[in-house]
């Protein structure tokens, strides 16, 4: 089973990102589960969401404690909560950021960290405002490319089927993030 934990702030779309990832994996024939942890829901509060993906039926209803991947949609969460909690040794953290100061990187420890500026991509595609960009589809595109958990076609189809507004802009944001990661990997 592949387990992904999303950390975001209320309004960023962590729950939707977790859902879209599940939808994309389901389209590729996997069994899935997507589960938001509801705390005190208000704009700006830390939000956690989980996605489980497996080729066998998923029966475990508990939360994710040992993720294979962690997606951090707001870097300010890194000093607020322990986003690395339980991350598997070979696990990976995707952070929505252009760069991170050294002291923040140290908080993330030995884990493999990948940075993608999903906020800039979302803003460029008119998703949310500059102050509050809705980064779920951009971060999903980047995550799909990095993790190889789902393909780009499935991501696009999941957006088509489940995103109610600005469908093309959301798909374009996902594609741009995917391509950015692909280019980054190519240049390494």
């Amino acid at each position, binding site marked *: 089973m592949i387990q992904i934990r999303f950390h975001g702030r209320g309004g960023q779309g962590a729950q939707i990102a977790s859902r879209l990832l*599940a939808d994309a994996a389901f389209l590729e024939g996997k069994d*899935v589960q*997507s*589960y938001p942890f509801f705390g005190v829901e208000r704009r700006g509060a830390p939000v956690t969401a989980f996605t489980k993906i497996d080729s066998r039926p998923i*029966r*475990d*209803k508990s939360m994710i404690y040992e993720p294979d991947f962690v997606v951090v949609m707001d870097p300010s969460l890194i000093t607020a909560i322990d986003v690395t909690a339980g991350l598997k040794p070979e696990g990976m953290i995707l952070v929505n950021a252009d760069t991170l100061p050294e002291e923040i990187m140290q908080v993330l420890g030995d884990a493999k960290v990948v940075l993608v500026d999903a906020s800039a991509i979302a803003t460029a595609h008119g998703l949310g405002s500059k102050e509050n960009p809705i980064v779920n589809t951009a971060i999903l595109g980047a995550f799909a490319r990095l993790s190889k958990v789902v393909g780009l076609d499935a991501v696009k189809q999941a957006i088509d089927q489940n995103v109610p507004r600005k469908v093309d802009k959301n798909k374009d944001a996902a594609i741009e993030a995917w391509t950015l990661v692909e280019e980054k990997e190519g240049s390494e």
Partner: protein
Amino acid sequence: MKKVITGNKATAYGVKVCRPKVIAAYPITPQTTIVEYIADFIADGSLESKFVKVESEHSAMAACIAAQNTGVRTFTATSAHGLALMHEMLHWAAAARTPVVMVNANRAMGPPWSIWADHLDSISQRDTGWIQTYCENSQEILDTIIMSYKIAENRKVMLPALLNEDAFYLTHTAEAVDIPDQELVDEFLPDFEPRYKIDTEEPFGFGSLVMPDNYYEFRYNIARAMEASKELTREAVQEFAELFGRDYHGLIEEYRTDDAEFILMGMGTLVSTARDAIDELRDEGHKVGLVKVRSFRPFPLEEMRDLASRIKSIAIMERVYAFGNRGPLFNEVCGAVYNSGHRPFLKNYIIGIGGRDVRVQDVKNVYLDLLKETEGADDGIPEEELNWYGLVGPGGD
């Protein structure tokens, strides 16, 4: 058609294919989206039904009862404090023999305020005369709605049915769910045709005063109807399996109990998690199986006695405590097996109260404790009959 949807959306689809004519509801977390999705179906024309917005859950149930009395199928959904507010009308629905079907999102009762999974809300309605079923996944909720209408509306039963889904674990968790074809549901579920209904051409009295000469027999009839629903449930489950290809086994489901000496028993989503625990324990060589209690009312008395005749030791896991005397399921099992002539070792584990997460390892720990207790007890009586699993500290004075 398979879709990735939440338990609440699966519930709405389950209701839609049963075509109730009246839906009355009042919002409460985490149930609210159920009736919002149903309202969407009515708005887009895919469900022909009257949606009655009411000022409280008490009124929601009253509206459903009144609509049922005119001879139509109804639905409502609620949770926790909403269900508690309905309490008077729950008695009324059962005693008036109106087969209302309701989904309850199992949520903890406050205070302290909580919106997470707990079974105290529905267990508190045990004696109202409602059929009570507990579901472990979203597919089961959808399918059980269809079966519940069929069982509840049978003229031998004519009792309301309460379906329970754990808050958030089901209500807000998205999973792949198969939405059955309307034609197939129509084949399985006949139209609702009650023997008595409000009809100006053929007037009857409803809910009038009766003298002690008669009241007693009205109660006996409810007891008899509840008993009759057991066999009808077993039949409905079988017919459903043949038509839809999904088998819910009956009032209980046994999982890997062949040659089992030990079983873990529970209701709701922790059963789903426990399946993974059982598989791991079996791989490790333990003779342990799982029993899901689907039907809490009527209680599966015969099934429990059968288990007692072949199982050495049973852990009863519950997301609820009956203040003053053990967990309610534990008490029911004790009562059921006492006159069976068999005496399995029974131990009660209170677990997952108020949405405390239940992990695979927690279920395995319950089994390991049961194993240790059973082997340590030479007289077949547990040293500690009750275990509050996973308390993080003692309470204050």
